[in-house]
């Protein structure tokens, strides 16, 4: 195995590991009253049927994950298969999710779990209502300073930069594509980095401003605390991701000026990718801590909205004017497929996913 394939393997395993962790932790990251994407009243959170289904799902995720990692390293000589292992794993985990939630759906229907439960959703009616948790500005500012600093340093070092300019590196840190040195080619990457920083900060502003109905889950105060804490966790994590990504681009730019030896550069890149995954892992763990497992139900329950969640994963509600809604399984937001723009956006994402699987093969032909 060459150094290059080994480095590719490490980076791919990191990415696959993050996917496996995210899928395995889906039940922990979701609201406690939607185990495997099935609405249940708060007094059924600890029902044996629910517990068994969630345990089976976690086990399926871990076994499939172990197989995917073994497969990834066994076929490392064909790096284009990496995406196949990752996508394949995602498909298997999704199928497991869809299949293993069935017993909960059946038990709920047979036992009429919602009978006699008061349900409600609440939201403000006055515009002065407080929104969500806002962006972590110091982190976004730091990211912007890093990105602008890198752009400034690159611009100031224009005369020292090699001509032609390295345009792409293999995973071993060896340049495999060159382009002529112009101001455009020199500044395109730093400019892209600055744009990325601004885009992530804008996403955080949008997240902080949006108001979504509070689903009381049997205990409105607790549900609100969890909602705020999850928003806080996402804001802090996105702030750190912004800093880490800007730093990664900064290192790429600095390498043009300093020109580290290939193995040093490659080590820095692996550390950089790891640094981007750290905030994601922190977010997952911090959000997982917020989930409760006890079955209290003094307040109203959240409505059974399974009808709007086919398979427990996708959202389809013609009545809902929102393009994005908080995800039911895991953290973040998902698209309302019944929204006119929602379908177009989803089609675009699917095409992008398929391209990411096909392009590596086309390139290695």
């Amino acid at each position, binding site marked *: 195995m060459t150094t290059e394939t080994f480095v590719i393997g490490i980076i791919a395993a990191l990415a696959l590991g993050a996917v496996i962790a995210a899928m395995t932790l889906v039940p922990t990251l979701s609201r406690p009253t939607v185990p495997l994407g099935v609405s249940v009243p708060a007094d059924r959170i600890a029902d044996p049927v629910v517990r068994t289904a969630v345990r089976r799902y976690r086990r399926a995720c871990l076994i499939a994950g172990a197989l995917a990692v073994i497969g990834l390293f066994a076929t490392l000589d064909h790096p284009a298969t990496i995406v196949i292992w990752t996508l394949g794993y995602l498909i298997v985990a999704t199928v497991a999710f869809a299949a293993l939630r069935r017993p909960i759906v059946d038990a709920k229907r047979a036992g009429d779990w919602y009978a006699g439960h008061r349900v409600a959703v*609440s939201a403000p*009616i006055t515009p002065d209502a407080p929104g969500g948790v806002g962006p972590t500005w110091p982190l976004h500012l730091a990211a912007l300073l890093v990105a602008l600093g890198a752009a400034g340093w690159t611009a100031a070092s224009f005369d020292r930069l090699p001509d032609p300019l390295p345009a792409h590196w293999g995973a071993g840190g060896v340049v495999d594509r060159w382009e002529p040195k112009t101001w455009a080619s020199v500044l395109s990457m730093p400019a892209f980095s600055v744009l990325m920083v601004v885009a992530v900060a804008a996403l955080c502003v949008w997240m902080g401003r949006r108001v979504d109905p509070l689903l009381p889950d049997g205990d409105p105060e607790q549900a609100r605390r969890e909602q705020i804490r999850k928003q806080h966790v996402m804001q802090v994590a996105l702030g750190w991701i912004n800093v880490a990504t800007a730093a990664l681009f900064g290192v790429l730019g600095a390498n043009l000026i300093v020109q580290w030896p290939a193995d040093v550069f490659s080590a820095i890149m692996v550390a950089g990718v790891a640094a981007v995954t750290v905030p994601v892992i922190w977010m997952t763990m911090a959000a997982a801590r917020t989930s409760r497992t006890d079955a209290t139900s003094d307040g109203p329950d959240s409505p059974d909205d399974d009808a709007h969640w086919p398979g427990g994963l996708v959202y389809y509600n013609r009545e*809902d*004017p929102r393009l994005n809604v908080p995800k039911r399984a895991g953290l973040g937001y998902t698209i309302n497929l019944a929204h006119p723009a929602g379908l177009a956006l989803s089609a675009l994402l699917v095409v992008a996913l398929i391209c990411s699987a096909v392009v590596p093969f086309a390139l290695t032909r």
Partner: protein
Amino acid sequence: MEIELDPTSSAPLYQQIHDRIVEGIALGRLRRGQPLASVRQLAGWFGINPGTVVKAYDQLRAEGFIETTPKSGTTVVADRDHPTATDERLDAVRAELFTVLATARAHGLDAAALDALVAAARERLDP
């Protein structure tokens, strides 16, 4: 101010929005001049059809509780400390109250029980 809606209730959603806002005014939680969320905002915040909010606001407007102007949007114009009801509105309230009390009487509640019902409701409005 926040309100709760029950999507499974037999009362339609627009009626629930209407009733919660009227109760907010009656309890003094909504005062004259207080701006309300726009139709688009409220529909988005609850994830419901904007038509539902339009229907609730139309009814509140017709009853003289809210007003919508292009400049300041939708605001509350009624206030529990300032009588604003027209004779026509009072007649409507009398008719609704009669139906509510008639429902209780039809369930077999006697005059004393009706008085207790009314007193309990008044106590909630002015504790």
